[in-house]
C-alpha cells in the first residue's frame, strides 16, 4: 500500500536526464511550471506535452512507474474537473436538472486537468531522476547569493536533505509497525472516522518514538564527527556545469520562447 507513493521518489537508472546538473533540472522544472500558466491555448499545451514527453522518454523512467504516482492525485483531479465543469458561467451546451455545462466550463475543466497532470508529472520527472542529496546541493548553490542578506542557506539545505532522507526510512518503519500491529489483530481500515483516528494510536506512538530515536542518533553521529555547517566546508563532489548542461539551458530558453510565442498569440 505504501509502496504506491512515488511522489518524491528516486528511480535508479542511467540517462541523459539523470546526468544533468541538478541546478539545470531545478530551473527547468520551474520554467516548465511557469510555462503551464503562461500558455492558454491548445497549441501551447501541445508544445508543453511534447516537451514533457521527450524529457520522460530521455529519462528512461517507465511511464507505468510514473502513472502509479498519479493515482494519489486522482481524487484532486476529479474535484477540479467537476467544479470547473459545472460552476462556470457562459454559453450553455448541456443541462441536467439545475446543473449546466457550459462551453467555457468544458474548456476550463480540460485546461485544469491538463495543467494539473503536467504539473505533477513535470515535477516528478525531476525527483525521479535526481537523488535527494543532489537536489539539495543544487538548491544550495542556486540560493547561495541569499547568504549576503544573512539567510542560512547551508542550514536550510541540510535540513531539507535530512528531511528527504528520512521519508523512505519512516515509510518503511510505518509499514513495519503497521504489519506488527495487524499481526496483533489491529484494524486500520474499517469503522467510522472516530474509530479510525483511534486506531492510529498504536501506529503513531511507536512511529514518533522511532523518529525521535533516529533524530537523536543522527545528532550524536554528526556531533561525533565534529560537524558544523556553513563556512569553510568543501564538497566531495562540487557541482560543475558541463557542455551538456548549457545545451539543456538553451533548449529550455527555446521552449519558453515557443510557449510565449505560440501559446499566447495564436488561437
Amino acid at each position: 500500500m505504501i509502496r504506491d507513493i512515488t511522489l518524491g521518489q528516486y528511480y535508479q537508472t542511467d540517462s541523459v536526464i539523470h546526468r544533468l546538473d541538478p541546478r539545470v533540472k531545478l530551473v527547468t522544472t520551474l520554467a516548465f511550471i511557469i510555462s503551464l500558466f503562461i500558455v492558454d491555448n491548445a497549441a501551447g499545451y501541445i508544445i508543453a506535452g511534447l516537451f514533457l514527453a521527450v524529457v520522460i522518454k530521455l529519462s528512461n523512467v517507465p511511464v507505468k512507474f510514473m502513472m502509479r504516482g498519479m493515482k494519489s492525485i486522482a481524487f484532486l483531479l476529479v474535484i477540479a474537473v467537476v467544479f470547473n465543469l459545472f460552476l462556470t458561467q457562459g454559453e450553455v451546451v448541456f443541462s441536467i436538472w439545475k446543473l449546466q455545462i457550459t462551453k467555457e466550463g468544458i474548456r476550463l475543466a480540460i485546461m485544469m486537468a491538463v495543467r494539473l497532470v503536467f504539473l505533477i508529472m513535470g515535477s516528478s520527472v525531476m525527483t525521479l531522476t535526481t537523488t535527494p542529496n543532489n537536489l539539495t546541493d543544487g538548491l544550495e548553490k542556486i540560493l547561495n547569493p541569499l547568504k549576503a542578506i544573512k539567510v542560512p542557506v547551508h542550514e536550510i539545505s541540510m535540513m531539507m536533505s535530512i528531511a528527504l532522507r528520512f521519508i523512505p526510512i519512516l515509510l518503511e518503519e510505518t509499514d513495519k509497525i503497521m504489519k506488527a500491529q495487524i499481526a496483533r489483530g489491529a484494524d486500520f481500515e474499517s469503522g467510522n472516522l472516530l474509530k479510525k483516528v483511534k486506531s492510529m494510536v498504536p501506529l503513531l506512538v511507536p512511529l514518533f518514538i522511532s523518529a525521535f530515536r533516529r533524530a537523536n542518533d543522527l545528532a550524536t553521529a554528526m556531533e561525533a564527527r565534529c560537524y558544523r555547517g556553513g563556512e569553510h566546508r568543501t564538497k566531495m563532489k562540487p557541482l560543475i556545469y558541463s557542455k551538456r548542461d548549457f545545451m539543456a539551458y538553451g533548449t529550455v530558453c527555446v521552449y519558453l520562447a515557443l510557449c510565449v510565442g505560440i501559446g499566447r498569440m495564436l488561437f
Partner: protein
Amino acid sequence: MSIVLEHVNHIYESGTAMEFPALTDINLVIPDGQFIGLIGHTGSGKSTLVQHLNGLLKPTGGKIYYNGSDINADGYNKKELRSKVGLVFQYPEHQLFEIDVFTDVCFGPRNLGLDKKEVELRAYAALKQVGLSDEYFYQSPFDLSGGQKRRVAIAGVLAMKPEVLILDEPTAGLDPKGRDEILDQIAKLREETGMTVILVSHSMEDVAKYVDRIIVMNKSRVLYDDEPKKVFSHYKELEAVGLAAPQITYIMQALKEKGLPVDTEITSVAEARTAILNALADKSRSR
C-alpha cells in the same frame, strides 16, 4: 491441522527496474507441534516467507493452506488466522505503545473482541509465560530494559493464544545472557503448550540446541529442509552460502580428520564432551 505451502512465489516491485524475487517455488509442510528453525542469510527471503504464513503478504503465485483452507481465498477470515498464527516481528519492542505493560499486552486479545475479564486473564498468563514478574506490570514499557521490552512484546502476541508462534530473529541485538534467556523461555513455553514454533534466525548456533527441524533458505529458495544434524553435515555447502554450522561441528570434523573416531553429527557441547571422552578411552584401551 498444519500449514501447507504449494509452489509459493513472491516478487517485489514486479515490472520495474527494482524487480526482485523474494520467494521462488517454496513447498513446505509444517505439521502441528514441530519446533522449526528457519535459517538464512540477510535477504534470503526468510522474513518474507513468515509474513505469508499469517496472511500479511499475499504470494504472487502459489497457494498457502492453514488447516486445509486456502488463506488467500475470498472471504477467508484473516483476523482469526492472525490470532491462530502469531507472528513476533524483529525488534518487537518497537511496536509497544500503551501507557503500561499490562495494557499493552491486552491490545491483542482485546482486538479479538473478547470480554474484559478474559482479556485480562490472558494478558496475565502471557506475561507469566514469558517470565516477567508482577512488579513490572504497571510500569511504562519504555522504562524497561531491552530484554524485558522484548518479553513484553512476545507476551503481546502470546496473549492471543496462537496455535503457531513465529519469532523473527527474537535474539537480535541482545547480549549472550539475554539471548539464552529468551531462547530457553521459548523452548520451555513450547514444551508446556505444545504449540508449533518457528524460529527465524541467521545463526545456526542459536537454534541447533532447540529445534527438531531446520529449513535453510538461500536466494529466495529452500536449500535444505531436514533434521539439524543432517543439515549440519553439509557444513561446507553452508559456508559457501555465507552460513556456518555450529562451532562444535567444526571441532568434531577436525578431530575426525586427525584420526579420532568421533560422531560428527553431534550438535551440542554436552554430547560432544561424552563422545570425545569415549573415543579417547577406546583409543587408549586399544593401544
